[in-house]
């Protein structure tokens, strides 16, 4: 009997990049697990939490906890920052509310980011994918520093036949949620730096585990007319077209 995981797909993937969601399901199934997708899921509440609006964030967090707590098995999230929100953010949100803190804790303990789940929990590093060309891996901040996940995606990329993988510097792309709109000048300067590094890397595709950053980077690449595209790690592992949409 194979294991079942609960996929928390994240609102960004659901609403903007459904193809990534499909790739995630495919990857998980290739890794030998059944995928359940709780239908009532929406947004984890991170944007409100990060903007300092904890009241609204708590409402969304409670909703997410309620949707997921009755399910069984690990919760897999194909986004470093959303996984981090559930793992750490919820505990901060409910620090003064023992009942919800307990519920948040139980969820946090069974929540994993996708690459972390594949490598650390399933011990899978080779999913039989291949990619011809050069990939630039973007270590997104919340994944790298928030969850301490770095070698896992790289291990998985190492398992991609024929791909040449280059790890970009662990520098923020300047997204930061509301920050990108609140401080567009700083955000843009940071993005420029990232785009310049991508250009130098001579990679055709930027791959990462956080859709928000990838959306920011690809939005920037398209704005300057670059032909480089971004892809979620799952899209590369599933051997799907390497572009966000």
């Amino acid at each position, binding site marked *: 009997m194979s294991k079942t995981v609960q996929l928390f797909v994240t609102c960004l993937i659901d609403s903007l990049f459904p193809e990534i969601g499909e790739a995630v399901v495919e990857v998980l199934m290739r890794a030998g697990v059944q995928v359940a997708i709780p239908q009532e899921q929406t947004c984890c509440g991170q944007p409100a939490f990060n903007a300092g609006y904890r009241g609204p964030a708590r409402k969304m967090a409670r909703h997410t906890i309620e949707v997921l707590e009755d399910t069984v098995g690990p919760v897999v999230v194909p986004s470093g920052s959303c996984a981090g929100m559930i793992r750490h953010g919820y505990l901060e949100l409910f620090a003064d509310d023992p009942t919800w803190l307990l519920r948040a804790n139980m969820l946090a303990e069974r929540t994993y980011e996708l690459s972390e789940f594949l490598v650390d929990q399933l011990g899978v590093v080779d*999913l039989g994918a291949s990619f011809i060309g050069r990939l630039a891996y973007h270590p997104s901040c919340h994944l790298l520093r928030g969850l301490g996940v770095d070698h896992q995606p790289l291990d998985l990329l190492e398992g991609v036949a024929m791909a040449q993988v280059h790890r970009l510097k662990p520098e923020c792309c300047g997204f930061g949620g509301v920050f990108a709109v609140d401080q567009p000048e700083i955000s843009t300067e940071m993005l420029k730096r990232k785009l310049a590094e991508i250009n130098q890397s001579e990679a055709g595709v930027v791959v990462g585990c956080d859709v928000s950053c990838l959306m920011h980077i690809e939005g920037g690449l398209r704005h300057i007319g670059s032909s480089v595209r971004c892809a979620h790690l799952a899209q590369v592992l599933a051997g799907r077209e390497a572009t966000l949409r």
Partner: protein
Amino acid sequence: MRNRFRHRIRNAIANPNLQVALDRNAERRMAAWNETFASLPDVEDLRRRAREVRQHTLDNLDHYLERFTQRLVENGIRVHRAADAAEACRLAVAITQASGATLVAKSKSITTEEIDLNHSLQQGGIRVVETDLGEFIVQLRGEAPAHIITPAVHLLREDVAATFERELGMPYSTDVEDMNAAAKKVLREVFLTAQVGISGVNFGVVETGTLCLVTNEGNGRMVTTLPPIHIAIMGVERLVPSLDDLALMLQLLPRSATGQKTTSYVTLIQNPRQEGEPDGSDERHVILLDNGRLAMANSPLAESLLCIRCGACLNVCPVFREIGGHAYGSVYPGPIGSVVSPGLFGLSDFGHLAKASTLCGACKEVCPVGIDFPTMLLRVRDAYSNNTPQPLAMWLAMSLYAWLMVSPSRYRLAQRLGAWGSRLLPKQAGWVRTLPPPLSAWTSSRYFPSFAFQPFLARKQRLNYDAKPTPTPQRRKRETEQLTEKSQPEDVVDRFSRELEDIGGTIVRCEEGVAPDKVAAYLREFGITKLIAWGEQQPALNAVIHHLRDKGFEILDPCLPRGSGPERDRRMVDLGRAEAGLTGAIAGVAETGTLVVPAGRNQSQLASLLPPVHLVLLPASVIHQTMTDWLREGGEEAIAGASSLNLISGPSRTADIEMTLTIGVHGPGQVIVFCLD
């Protein structure tokens, strides 16, 4: 406040010199940071212990403050408590005025910037001169420091050259050595004539009542030694319980701040000048500043009080790298500033700073005491949005957003509206090129993906995957390179010599018996005839001094009259002409090439500070592998027993102009150690 912040940000980004300076700072500092931490075997363990020490201190702050105060008083230091900035300034001005002083020499202290002390002193009719090179430059320019460690980080050498030309009448030169020399000349005069010296404190050691200052240029030593009165101003949280804890902090602070294993000088001050001592401040005061710290210790931002002010979080911060220090509008810029400025100076005026962060966590990663910045910044944002008036639109947007998201049907409706909305906007290959305000801020530099007509959750039913065969999981071991040095323990004297030479010192190994001749030969080679030397000490040193006298070298009487007055001024000028200083050392520390040079009876401090060359006699038998070893084997007693003590590591240095290293600023430019086997 917010609008001005935006305005300063735009100006900073549009300033090409500033951008070059900031890029350089980020790149060089982080390269140095990486290199210096690579030489430490267990960084994580060190940082964990440092955090524990600081946390423990904060948890028992009342107790430690009381003990510390008691010790200081026992040591003959006068202690004052200041509840806020105004009180601290009043105290410092009153002490200065009571002494009749009209000139104050100051060494860099961000705490005095916090209370805007210079302004108060000037209003009290007192001239105050900043003596740290970077701080001197920004003072000349009428600016605030742009960084907590490197005040002139925002300037290129051309900027400094123009300032020196304008303010000092120096011929325009972009040669960093020239500029440093010009500043040194002006400041030497200030050191020799100031009646009061004001400094900060890096750490106060509770068990011994020691004030620890960590510096490179030597101005900190001047300011705390030469003027008859020394006033030290420190935040109440800057304590460590013991000397052992201090040794731990000293492993981390210089590495984090400037990428050095240790700074040129670590000054440990215990008492005012004692009977029989040739120099040292006669009167020492400590002002313990609260200014919101104790209140913050009981707030959700308490963790930020762990900070040891190394500045690493600024150097690694991608936002600081774009906008520099001045844009923040607070004496504490960068990540730490975005937490403590609202915490200490008010949420309504500074809370917005916490929003200027992507929460990337690079600061947390480098912080030597592991302050959890993302969490701290989120707490400031939370408090800010709850306690200060926010734009109604933002509040409405957040409420609406939550209302949509807690109901799956409303969420789906919103997705549909988003999809239809995307249709109406100008697009290119499925990406929206322009969004309406306020979201146009996004599309100013990036496209935005349009909403999908069929979201993932709605698609799922259609999925029909063939469950593919599960591959055999292959675990591949990643070889993590061991960066730690795994060599055989090196001979202690060899290690000392290597480290000393690494930081620009010179080592001469010789038999004790030939030391007098060796020293004399060296002096002749440099054309030195006039020296300041320690008085009667160990036989080896005495032998050298007698020999030099016999050979016709002039050995000056280093003893300064107490208090201020013409006699003292005259003597000071005379001592200022010495070409070399000759001292002993009570210990050496091999890991950093450090000399332990105490001040005490017959032990002139000026000998190792004022002249351009410092000669030291160091018996090989007193060299220890590490600082901790030395502390265990008599170091603690030595510190407690000396009225002050300097850990000297190589020549005096600065890198305040464009991070270009210059050797020999205020202190000696040459340190020559005669190691006696």
